[in-house]
């Protein structure tokens, strides 16, 4: 990942080369420890290894090539920003959420210390000039979800102009009307940015592309219900993480290939861990690259992760957009409805999520659930209590973990997770 071939490109993006090299080195080592050390891994994982090794290299090169052809790059922080519309204007849609502790001290000049690690990370990456994605964006889209993000975008806007979508906080009729107007406003903004008109045909194509991507991920989710588990949770998380960076068509093809391989493995009863291994579902805040801390701790404690109920997981993939619409208006309505089904903890009430967690735990045959909230994340910490109650009523054990990106609590986490796994045995 320290390939100096990309140096010139990084220089042009005005990254802090020294700090960036150090970051890649740490990332490479971390990846080696957590991913390459796995036994009996899938062949399809080669794709994952390659994409990750080139996450700041070839993929950025592709973005620059697209820009040279006159296409635009749009960066987002939330699964509420409709990728279908971005694609319909031939723009590239990437996720900017960051999962590494970098530039924290710089970030704390803009946001208070008691801000979640995810927010501090994307601000820190920008301020420390470490993220080639942020630097490649023609437009950055924020959204009004949690208070932490809302206020952070105000500060972020000063260093990186940020377009804000207003995501409602409830799911009433009035909220839907607001959301629809916001989707339309986004569409107009994208048209303005790209100078292209989004036709019904283009939008339909965008919907198909994103649906196909989500279907591939749904297929992966379903296959993970098999016992023995055919893929590690770490690899499955990586698949979901990469879905926010890679070209959607290539990603979809590769993940379908990976699923073909999984089907064969399942048939041969060939698992990543023995059939009696305790199966756990992760639920809660999104885990952005390279936040593999908890999955690694869990899978080192003798359990296997069989699902991620999060935005880098099923919250992003569970629902498809209805493809039957033909007119612009029908398709916009279908988009609006699909996006309003997202069960983010920023909504009130958000009782669908409780049912969805319990359902997913059952569908993946999980023996228990680990609820993960980032420190200082109000919405998900609150819901941890509710999820616990719901699962208790279903007889599904749950462990609640609150942590951040630092490594100082790893030993504590290990003890907690190992003890939880012991109670399941």
């Amino acid at each position: 990942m320290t390939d100096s071939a990309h140096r010139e490109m990084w220089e042009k993006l005005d990254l802090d080369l020294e700090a960036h090299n150090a970051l890649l080195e740490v990332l490479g080592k971390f990846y080696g420890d957590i991913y390459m050390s796995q036994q009996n891994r899938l062949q399809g994982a080669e794709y994952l290894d390659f994409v990750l090794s080139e996450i700041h290299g070839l993929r950025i090169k592709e973005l620059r090539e697209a820009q040279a052809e006159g296409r635009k790059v749009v960066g987002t922080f939330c699964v509420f920003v409709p990728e279908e519309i971005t694609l319909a204007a031939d723009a590239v849609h990437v996720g900017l959420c960051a999962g590494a502790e970098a530039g924290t001290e710089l970030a704390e000049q803009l946001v208070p210390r008691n801000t979640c690690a995810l927010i501090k990370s994307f601000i820190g990456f920008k301020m420390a000039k470490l993220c080639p994605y942020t630097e490649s964006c023609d437009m950055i889209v924020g959204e009004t979800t949690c208070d932490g993000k809302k206020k952070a975008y105000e500060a972020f806007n000063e260093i990186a102009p940020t377009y804000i979508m207003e995501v409602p906080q409830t799911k009433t009729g009035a909220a839907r009307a607001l959301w629809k107007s916001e989707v339309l406003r986004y569409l107009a903004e994208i048209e303005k940015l790209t100078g292209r008109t989004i036709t019904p045909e283009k939008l339909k194509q965008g919907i198909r592309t994103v649906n196909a991507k989500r279907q591939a991920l749904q297929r992966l989710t379903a296959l993970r219900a098999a016992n023995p588990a055919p893929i590690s949770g770490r690899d499955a998380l990586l698949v979901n993480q990469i879905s926010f960076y890679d070209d959607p068509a290539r990603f979809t093809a590769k993940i379908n290939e990976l699923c073909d391989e999984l089907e064969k493995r399942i048939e041969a009863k060939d698992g990543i861990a023995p059939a009696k291994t305790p199966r756990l579902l992760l639920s809660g805040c999104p885990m952005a690259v390279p936040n593999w801390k908890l999955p690694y701790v869990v899978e080192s404690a003798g359990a296997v992760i069989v699902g991620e109920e999060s935005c880098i997981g099923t919250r992003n993939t569970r629902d498809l957009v209805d493809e039957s619409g033909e007119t612009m208006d029908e398709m916009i309505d279908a988009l609006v409805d699909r996006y309003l089904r997202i069960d983010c903890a920023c909504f009130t009430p958000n009782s669908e999520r409780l049912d969805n967690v319990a359902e997913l735990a059952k569908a993946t045959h999980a023996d228990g659930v680990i609820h993960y909230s980032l420190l200082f994340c109000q919405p998900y910490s609150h819901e941890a209590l509710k999820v616990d109650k719901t699962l208790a009523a279903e007889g599904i054990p749950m462990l609640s973990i609150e942590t951040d990106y630092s490594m100082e609590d790893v030993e504590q986490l290990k003890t907690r997770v190992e003890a939880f796994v012991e109670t399941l045995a």
Partner: protein
Amino acid sequence: MIVGLDIGSRSIELVGMKNRVVVRAERVPTTFDPLSQCGKLLEGLRPDILVGTGYGRNLIERLALNCECTVITEIKAHALGAGHLFPEAATVLDIGGQDTKAIALSNGKAVKFEMNDRCAAGTGKFLEYTAGVFQIPIEEFGQYALKGENPPEISSICTVFAETEATSLMARGEQPESIALGLHKAIIKRTVNMLNRVGLRLPLVFSGGVANNPCVRSLLASAIDARENEGLLIPDSPDMVGALGAALHRANS
């Protein structure tokens, strides 16, 4: 012989069992070199199976012993140990050197547990540190605090802030014994919260080094509406429970 080794942050305990009977129980401080401290404890012993537990449990891999080695968490170890000493136990509280654990039992098995977060607030370390402020040996700190009356409210259980608070209370002329009692009460408040989170049911077994402190014991008893030996059960050697549980993990199978 089956040996249980509880490698904690403050001390290391060893329990040796033959035919489910304890034949050896010893304890040394952890120091900065836990590995050689473990070696000392094991000197002259030839365990058939070694079970490690506690914060440093994975150190046993580096002991290079010629026997089967395995590890369990301190949660499981305390559940097993407490359940063995008191089969009627419903909840276990362990306050050790650096952490506090509350464990709900069902049929002798841990079903739910809570642990303190990353800092040592309200644990044995807290008492040790604050005892230092009073220049009282830690072993006598509980007895000292029991002499206190009308304890002032100590609002912080952060080790550092509590010290500051205690010092300023002294400057205001509060009785040192009463301040000490206030510090003990602060621990109990937090501990009871943790117990409630796992759904406290009596009898409660209180293990770990802090169970030797008479003030903590008596405050805890009244806070949970129990009395010593009635609802609140304290092992003869509370700090050996983890090592005992570790040994039992394999002695039972």
